[in-house]
């Protein structure tokens, strides 16, 4: 096969794009946004039905909408976008030609066909089985077949990514070690391979069962293995959006990782321990021992939580160091006050870090504590938690990355002036409120995936406390804000990509990957290269971040023991 060596150098960022890789990035990003659009439209129906004051949809439509919303958002939007990130982190960051672009397109089209097939199954109306599709509740065979095709496509893309790493190494397109962001992407891809393999192990027998070829699928076996796929796929997101945080800090501030050693070790901990987390979903299930539950739910000994706490310090810490070196070195927080609060990628990444840590991270540990799970399992607390991790953490970080990539990848200006910045604020803040109030309603017992918690017309009704109803109403209001924010993102992105003002690019700088690299992009003029010598206070380069980290830890500890206190008041159980 003829090797395509067409490269262009982005005139604004100095990034080098291999043309086939660039095209794949663009297509994956566009399809991702289409999935986000579909998921977003479905979210309107879901939200306005759960908001009991509106109660828009009938039960059957509600469950159908909820199923499709979960799949389009959690799977199709995020994974298509992650494929673009994998190609970016390998081909672009390593200035390397993409391995086997043809296979990458096969993977892409398998993913598209799989996504369409799965959506078709749900649209039929006989596959409203939720994202989790717990057997023995069965869906139409095309539901599982679609997911399997999608997974095979994603697996091919992962191997194209690995192949590109091999080529980059062989052709010496970079010196020393891969960049930290690429390292994070490798983490995501390794977790993805594990995840997809687990998905195959459970979805293939389930497909055969739905076709009548297998007699019985055990419900506990299904849940145990399925969550090795379902939870792990969210861990791909964590690795990916943490990489995006580092990339954001690098792009906006020219920030250098505080310590490559620490950040890379933290990613390594993800590879070793994140996979154990399928146990989070099985803490209230029969047939598994407490020893198994405790070891797995805590990722051995919370070693993956440790990794996230490290990233949560090192990303803002590296921003603080970069800012202090630029001269914002007064007091504890001048670096933060003088941050570019009008820069959309920065605002998105910043809210993503804070929301993921304070809302998503802390609540995740609560649910994943064996006994605390008893007062949380399957309540609205659960979707409250994962809207904080997956939407504020992952989606918002990806939105920030989009605003960086539109000029770079599509050569168009981000449309509508400051609207992108406003979008990040509106979406981030609304989603935070939405998650908090959802978790509040869950703490008061309101169930998830439930069409009518008023139990209207039921001889055995139950009335949730008035506070729970208030929380639901507030969730509805903030949810509408989040929908507005999501619509703004779609409007900006679609308009910019198709109709935005073109950035005039000089002809493609075609160079051979082996010889003529474009000149290395220089770090932003201010010397953000040192390790931060001469800045900071108390013998620390990032004292402000340390104070913020202690605030985080304090809220974490307090909230943790508040939940134990709450648990100690419920009926004794053994």
């Amino acid at each position, binding site marked *: 096969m003829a090797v395509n060596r067409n490269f262009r150098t982005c005139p604004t960022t100095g990034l080098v794009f291999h043309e086939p890789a660039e095209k794949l990035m663009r297509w994956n990003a566009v399809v991702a946004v289409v999935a986000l659009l579909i998921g977003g439209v479905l979210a309107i129906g879901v939200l306005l039905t759960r908001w009991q004051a509106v109660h828009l949809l009938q*039960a059957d439509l509600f469950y159908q909408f909820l199923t499709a919303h979960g799949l389009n958002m959690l799977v199709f939007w995020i994974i298509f976008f992650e494929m673009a990130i994998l190609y970016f982190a390998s081909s672009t*960051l390593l200035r390397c030609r993409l391995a086997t672009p043809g296979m990458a397109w096969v993977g892409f089209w398998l993913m598209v066909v799989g996504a369409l097939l799965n959506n078709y199954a749900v649209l039929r109306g006989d596959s409203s089985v*939720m994202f989790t599709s*717990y057997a*023995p*509740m069965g869906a139409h065979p095309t539901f599982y077949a679609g997911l399997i095709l999608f997974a095979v496509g994603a697996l091919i893309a992962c191997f194209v990514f690995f192949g590109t790493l091999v080529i980059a190494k062989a052709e010496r397109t970079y*010196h*020393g070690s891969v*960049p*930290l962001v690429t390292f994070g992407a490798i983490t995501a891809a390794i977790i993805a391979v594990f995840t997809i393999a687990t998905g195959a192990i459970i979805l293939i027998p389930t497909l055969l069962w739905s076709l009548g070829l297998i007699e019985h699928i055990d*419900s*506990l076996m299904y*849940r145990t293995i399925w969550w090795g796929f379902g939870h792990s796929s969210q861990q791909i997101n964590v690795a990916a959006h943490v990489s995006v945080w580092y990339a954001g*800090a*690098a*792009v906006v501030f*020219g*920030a250098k*990782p*505080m310590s*490559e*050693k620490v950040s890379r070790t933290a990613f390594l901990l993800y590879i070793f321990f994140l996979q154990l987390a399928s146990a989070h979903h099985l803490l*209230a299930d*029969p*047939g598994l021992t*407490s020893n198994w539950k405790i070891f797995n739910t*805590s990722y051995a*000994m*919370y*070693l993956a939580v440790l990794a996230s*706490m490290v990233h949560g*310090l*090192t990303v803002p810490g590296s921003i603080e160091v970069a800012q202090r070196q630029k001269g914002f070195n007064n007091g504890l927080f001048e670096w933060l006050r003088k941050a570019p609060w009008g820069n959309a990628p920065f605002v998105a990444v910043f809210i993503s870090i804070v929301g993921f840590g304070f809302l998503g991270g802390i609540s995740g*540990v609560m649910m994943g504590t064996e*006994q605390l*799970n*008893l*007062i949380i*399992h*399957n309540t609205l607390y659960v979707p409250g938690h994962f809207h904080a991790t997956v939407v504020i953490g992952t989606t918002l970080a990806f939105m920030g990355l989009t605003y960086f990539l539109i000029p770079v990848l599509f050569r168009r200006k981000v449309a509508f002036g400051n609207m992108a910045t406003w979008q990040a604020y509106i979406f981030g803040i609304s989603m935070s409120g939405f998650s908090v109030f959802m978790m509040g309603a869950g703490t*008061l*017992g309101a169930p998830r*995936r*439930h069409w*009518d918690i008023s*139990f209207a017309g*039921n001889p*055995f009704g*139950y009335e949730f406390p008035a506070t729970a109803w208030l929380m639901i109403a507030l969730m509805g209001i903030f949810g509408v804000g989040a929908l507005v924010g999501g619509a703004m993102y779609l409007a900006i992105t679609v308009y910019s990509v198709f109709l935005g003002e073109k950035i005039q690019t000089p002809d493609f700088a075609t160079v051979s990957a082996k010889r003529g690299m474009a000149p*290395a*992009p220089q770090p932003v003029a201010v010397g953000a290269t040192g390790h931060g010598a001469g800045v900071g206070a108390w013998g620390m*380069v990032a004292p402000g971040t*340390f104070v913020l*980290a202690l605030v985080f830890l304090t809220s974490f500890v307090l909230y943790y023991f508040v939940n134990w206190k709450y648990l*100690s008041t*419920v*009926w*004794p*159980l*053994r």
Partner: protein
Amino acid sequence: MSAILPPTERVWWKEPLDRVELLWIVIALVWCLIMFFMMPYWHVYGQQNLANEAYKTSPEAFAKKADEVIAKYKVREEGPQKIPVVKPPAGSDVYLVARLWSWQPILELEAGKSYRIHLMSMDWLHGFSLQPENINIEVHPGYDHVLTVTPTAPGKFSIICNEYCGINHHTMISPLYVVK
């Protein structure tokens, strides 16, 4: 832009750590260990734990045992479906059947007394969610899950289903009475 460039120091793993990172790693690790040991601690000193007692069984066998208990301890019937209410003696085995879309029987328990409640589904997955206590447990078909519970105060409670189980999921609700 160096997180997106190869590390400037080729031997990056020998660079010393800054105090801020080292201190935070130590603090975070200690906190992680505290959280880890909190779970075994609660198994020893706490009151709210699942006992890991579960048996594989068939829906027919489970329903038979449930019917025996209903026949023995039925005190009345409730609701348009005439669902039996049972008042079992303290310490006894009680079988709660979850099926599309009902719980059966209705339980009447005494405050301060312990009961061995067996949970199992006849068909799909269901969720045992006791309100307003807010105790939530997954109910599987084929697994008889035994909980020893001790209601603390009298009152009317509700068991709602909180694992999605199809179109009438929201109608799957049952009272549970605790008397003095």
